[in-house]
């Protein structure tokens, strides 16, 4: 049996969730899973190309954090960005169309799987080099604080959630940005999705100290570890971190212990992860766990959850149909978007 880190007990009292919010979070998680399964199908059928990194297994992190935020907050992601985009509110049809390279995609077919953007939903991207999104997220958080401090805008209390993986936590940009965020007390959540593997590099082989959340202490920052397979636990620590950030009390480093249920990308043969490790984590499926919670708490009935699954399946099928029927970008617009145009901000 693979030695796993002992999962932390929730140090804050278990939060209550309303039936309405609970079903919304559940729907978001199901959307993430269903969407990604559809992506795998479409990739193998030759409908999407390039590197496609799926999020299966990590849904509790995206839904737990982003669904604890406001719609005017900012989200910054990595190359594994489909589900963050969906949680941030980007319509599934726009994400699917982007993966198909269509003009109706959220990045107009210029970005692809690893470069999803939506200014309307404050989704700052899709950054494909490991850790390079962290400074960009820091900039959005700086901007919120700048508006408050330098421009005297008291309504500028937006918080930024910056997602990245365990691999990024060994990169200089991670440490540099933690320093600046703590130094200036910026309203940002650094969310490390520790899924234990950076492609084929096991986290324990890449870092001198595997408990990433502890690295916050070097910067005098709050660092918390949380069971990334438990959406209610993630939601609880996210809510606390968001409140801290919004109150002007600075950043939080959240390390969510999670696991990807598929390879690094759809091109990864996934030969290095031990079978027993995978099975151990598969048995902790965050969606099944949350289903059990909702039923146990009398927040939903099995049949209602099945209805949601059916509804989401229809949404995802419709997204594929939309993507299929959407036009490719106009070749005459090859150069469009290099520079700003008349009427842009």
């Amino acid at each position, binding site marked *: 049996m693979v030695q796993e880190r002992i999962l932390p007990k929730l140090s804050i009292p278990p939060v209550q969730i309303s039936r309405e919010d609970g079903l919304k979070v559940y729907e978001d998680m199901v959307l993430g899973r269903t969407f990604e399964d559809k992506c795998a199908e479409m990739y193998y059928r030759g409908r999407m190309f390039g590197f496609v990194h799926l999020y299966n297994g990590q849904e509790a992190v995206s839904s737990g954090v982003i669904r604890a935020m406001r719609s005017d907050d900012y989200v910054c992601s990595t190359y594994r960005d489909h589900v963050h985009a969906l949680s941030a509110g980007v319509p599934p049809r726009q994400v699917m169309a982007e993966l198909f390279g269509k003009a109706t995609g959220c990045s107009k077919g210029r970005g692809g799987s690893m470069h999803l953007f939506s200014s309307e939903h404050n989704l700052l991207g899709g950054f494909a080099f490991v850790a390079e999104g962290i400074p*960009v997220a820091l900039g959005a958080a700086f*901007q919120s604080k700048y508006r408050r401090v*330098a421009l005297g805008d008291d309504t500028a209390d937006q918080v930024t959630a910056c997602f990245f993986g365990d691999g990024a936590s060994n990169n200089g940009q991670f440490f540099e940005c933690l320093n*600046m965020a703590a130094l200036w007390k910026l309203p940002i959540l650094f969310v490390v999705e520790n899924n234990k593997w950076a492609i084929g590099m096991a986290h324990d082989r890449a870092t001198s100290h595997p408990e990433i959340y502890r690295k916050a202490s070097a910067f005098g920052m709050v660092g918390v570890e949380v069971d990334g397979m438990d959406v209610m636990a993630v939601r609880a620590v996210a809510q606390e971190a968001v409140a801290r950030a919004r109150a002007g009390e600075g950043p939080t480093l959240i390390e969510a212990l999670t696991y990807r249920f598929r390879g690094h990308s759809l091109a990864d043969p996934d030969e290095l992860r031990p079978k027993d490790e995978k099975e151990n984590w598969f048995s902790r499926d965050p969606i099944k766990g949350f289903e059990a919670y909702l039923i146990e708490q009398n927040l939903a009935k099995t049949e209602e959850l099945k209805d949601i699954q059916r509804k989401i399946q229809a949404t995802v099928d419709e997204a594929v149909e939309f993507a299929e029927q959407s036009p490719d970008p106009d070749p005459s617009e090859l150069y469009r978007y290099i520079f700003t145009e008349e009427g842009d901000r």
Partner: protein
Amino acid sequence: MAEVLLFNALRAAIDEEMAHDPTVMVMGEDVGHYGGSYKVTKGLCKKYGDFRVLDTPIAENSFTGMAVGAAMTGLKPIIEGMNMGFLLLAFNQIANNAMLRYTSGGNFSVPIVVRGPGGVGKQLGAEHSQRLEAYFQAVPGLKIVACSTPYNAKGLLKSAIRDPNPVLFFEHVLLYNLKEEIPDGEYYLPLDKAEVVRPGKDVTILTYSRMRHHVLQAVKPLVEQGFDPEVIDLLSLKPFDLETIGASIKKTHRVLIVEECMKTAGIGAELIASISENFFDELDGPVVRLSSQDIPTPYNGALENLTIVQPAQIVAMVQQMVAQKV
């Protein structure tokens, strides 16, 4: 009109734009309390506060990325590279993310200015003598500008700050104390226009930044000897102002490029390609390049002088080109 030092012209540009637009801010190493290593931002943090003139830790890649994120969400950051060479450490954020307007399908613009001292100084050693303009010219979505006088420094920097796209703005470490009379009021110069510094008919000399002044030193004896060179300061290194360049070539039919970047894959290399593509039939001979040597800049003063182009070389080359009708 008042006589102004180049670094003060730059400061006036930043000061005026910060006064106009509260989203304009400066960030970089020692830009605030210290006033900038060449005093371009001196006094601005007293006037605008620590947040608008932000002293950053020494973390070039991260604070450049931070500027990108701030620009995407509505601010207009001016990043000072304490030395433009340090921006090698920020190459990823500039090359990948300053251009993300395209990748994002127009979702986000990145109105940043990255400015600071470039060029070869006086015995600063190899690392402080990097010339990055050539390294960055291949990055799509960037505008690249090199100022050379107090007048153009101010007008170009003000336009760069107003531009909604990312602009790399090169100053020269040896030109900060250049003095010139400039207009008292505010003015803006276009970012994509070259300047005809001296009209002439024998040969077109294309140059930029400090080499403009080496060329002008060379022009003096050349004119006394009866030569009539036309001198063009490119100002815009990307895109090139092919209209001004072409009009000159149609007149002189000969081109000499004088540049401080290295010869291989330099600004001149791209210029020659553009001239060849657009004005080949107008040329009476091959375009000639005088560039820095393809070596790390040596510390020794005599060797350093041998590394960059000197006025005497320009004189000799013009004499040769015109006499031989090259």
